[in-house]
């Protein structure tokens, strides 16, 4: 199996007819993703890469049975799009859009959670389960291989590096979850750990963290509590970031002495998590523990 996305997932893309939507519908189809519908208000009846476009998610779900929504809608309208998806009854919403007002994100993250909907993002690259032939989002398909490692990450490209290194080392992945670099995440490290711990196929877990907030420290505490029995590896970006600066991600900021890479690294190490100095070291750690897949 895998987590969040499986081969049975049916994907609807909100913001289907824009540049990004169109491109990634093609890329996802190539990867094997079952994209069943697009949504762009006012463009119902059109199609993108032979996928029918609807005016509303409600209609798309009714007509195609879509249960995963991918949101490319521009930031000012993203909250509306997510609420629409949740009310339309999808089970998972993945929000790629960046620069969403943080109060909008809080609103839709809490609403989705309250309605039992798994929300990934915002400001994330999406997710991929290579063994299930599905990726939903903007992750590059060619870096993935099926295998035993689950990855949860706050960062896009950095994760591609790490996944690519794993694949080059012969170690494949169950699911890669891009959690996003915003302060308010739909799914955080602890929730990702829960998912991967419960997934039989996942044998080891990689967390890619960064400065800002305390999600890494909380994940470490969760691991230390014994709720995670699988080996966990981590990389933390931003060891040299100065205090008070947002390092590219809205969430990547050291405030006073809070949110430092040092604190995160210490917490992880105390919980028995191996922390890598360079991103690609992760692959060596995993290989040493698990052997090649």
């Amino acid at each position, binding site marked *: 199996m895998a987590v969040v996305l499986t081969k049975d997932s049916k994907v609807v893309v909100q913001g289907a007819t824009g540049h990004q939507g169109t491109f*990634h519908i093609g*890329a996802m189809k190539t990867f094997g993703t079952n994209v069943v519908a697009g949504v762009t208000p006012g463009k119902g009846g059109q199609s993108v890469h032979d996928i029918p476009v609807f005016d509303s998610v409600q209609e798309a779900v009714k007509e195609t049975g879509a249960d995963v929504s991918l949101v490319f809608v521009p*930031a*000012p309208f993203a909250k509306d799009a997510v609420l629409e998806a949740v009310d339309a009854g999808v089970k998972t919403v993945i929000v790629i859009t960046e*620069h969403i*007002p*943080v*109060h909008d994100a*809080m*609103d839709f*993250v*809490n*609403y989705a*959670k309250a309605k039992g909907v798994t929300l990934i993002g915002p400001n994330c690259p999406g997710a991929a389960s290579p063994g299930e032939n599905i990726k939903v989002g*903007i*992750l*590059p398909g*060619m*870096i993935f291989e099926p295998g035993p490692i689950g990855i949860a*990450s*706050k*960062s*896009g*490209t*950095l*994760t*591609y*590096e790490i996944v*690519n290194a794993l694949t080059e080392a012969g170690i494949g992945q169950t699911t890669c979850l891009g959690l996003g*670099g915003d*302060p*308010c*995440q739909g799914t955080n490290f602890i929730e990702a750990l829960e998912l991967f711990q419960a997934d039989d196929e996942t044998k080891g877990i990689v967390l890619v963290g*960064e*400065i800002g*907030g*305390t*999600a890494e420290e*909380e994940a470490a505490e969760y691991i230390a509590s014994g709720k995670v029995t699988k080996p966990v590896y981590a*990389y933390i*970006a*931003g*060891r*040299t*970031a*100065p205090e*008070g*600066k947002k*390092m*590219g*991600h*809205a*969430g*990547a900021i050291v405030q*006073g002495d809070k949110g430092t*890479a040092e604190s995160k690294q210490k917490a992880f190490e105390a919980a028995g998590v191996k922390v890598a*100095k*360079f*991103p*690609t070291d992760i692959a060596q750690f995993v290989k040493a523990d698990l052997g090649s897949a």
Partner: protein
Amino acid sequence: MKLLEYQGKQLFRDAGIPIPKGAYLPSLDTFDTIKDRLSYPAVVKAQVLIGGRGKAGGIQFADNDAEAKAQAKKIIGMDIKGHEVKSVYIEEKLDIDRELYVSCLIDRTTRKTLMLFSAEGGIEIESVPEDKIAKVYIDPLTGFSQFHARQALAVLPDGYSKDERKQLAKMLGQLYDAFRSFDCELLEINPLAITKDGQVIAADSKAIINDAAKFRQKKFEEEASEYTELEKEANAQGIAFIQLDGTIGVIANGAGLTMATLDALNEYGGNAGVFLDLGGTDDPDQVARAMRLMKKAKPSLILVNLFGGITKCDTVAKGIREVFEKEGLDCPVVTRIKGTNEKEAKEILKDAGFITTNTLQDAAKKCSELEKQQIKEVA
């Protein structure tokens, strides 16, 4: 976007939160236009985005217009911890009996609004003991309700009158509503004053408006900024660009990868001077704009670290090549390119005289060595 005190006070006034009578003085020569809005005794306060202005002499008292103007003259132009004072806010001096604290912020862990309230205000909240701070979590699905106010006010010691508690409860609700409606990341009243005659009033303000919400928060202009001129220029172009203490310019695609590149550099003793995240772009024009910004920062050398996924390495390389060819680069460039169209990218950059490496570690090591060499040469 951080607001100056006087802007935060305006925000409070719009939210119905009581504030002292006062007027903003943007420059000395407009003093006459605000005279009739002043009442004495008054406080003249430096408008800067940094704490500790009192100790630095940025807060002075005045009993009449002449004194107020004299104090303003003294304060404007001051340098407070590297921040130049450009304006002052003059407001009535309150007859304060007690100083309390309240703030709203975004709690990442619970994904809710966290309201901090304490009867110990007027000092940094970090210095107040944990058990004297009420932590109230407010779910955006319900908004503020009276039980939140009760949870906050539970930390009040004895000696607060029913009316004071009522005023405080009302203000907490107004603060939460303002926090939401003005898209704040932080909204703080410290001190939250109770005057000798029992009035609850916001004596200071601290407000950070969420940058992502600027498109719908047009009321306040950014009047003071912590950004450098180059950072502002980059922001305007949608490029994540941060000036740091060192001299090496770092370009990578993705915030995480850019941070990881800085970190690797640091491991080998290198000192980054610029963080430049290209993001997901592979538009050569946008890359060229980024390169031009980098040039303006005058780095001693440039480290380019690309991982191509959906982004194609060759189109990024084209943008770099363009600036190199048309405008020249007067410092060494170390590249590490990996992923989609890696070969084509290397081909494009091959005769530019750039130093090519295969791993992030190698690239970081090389840069650090070059930097040391440069320092030696200068010495």
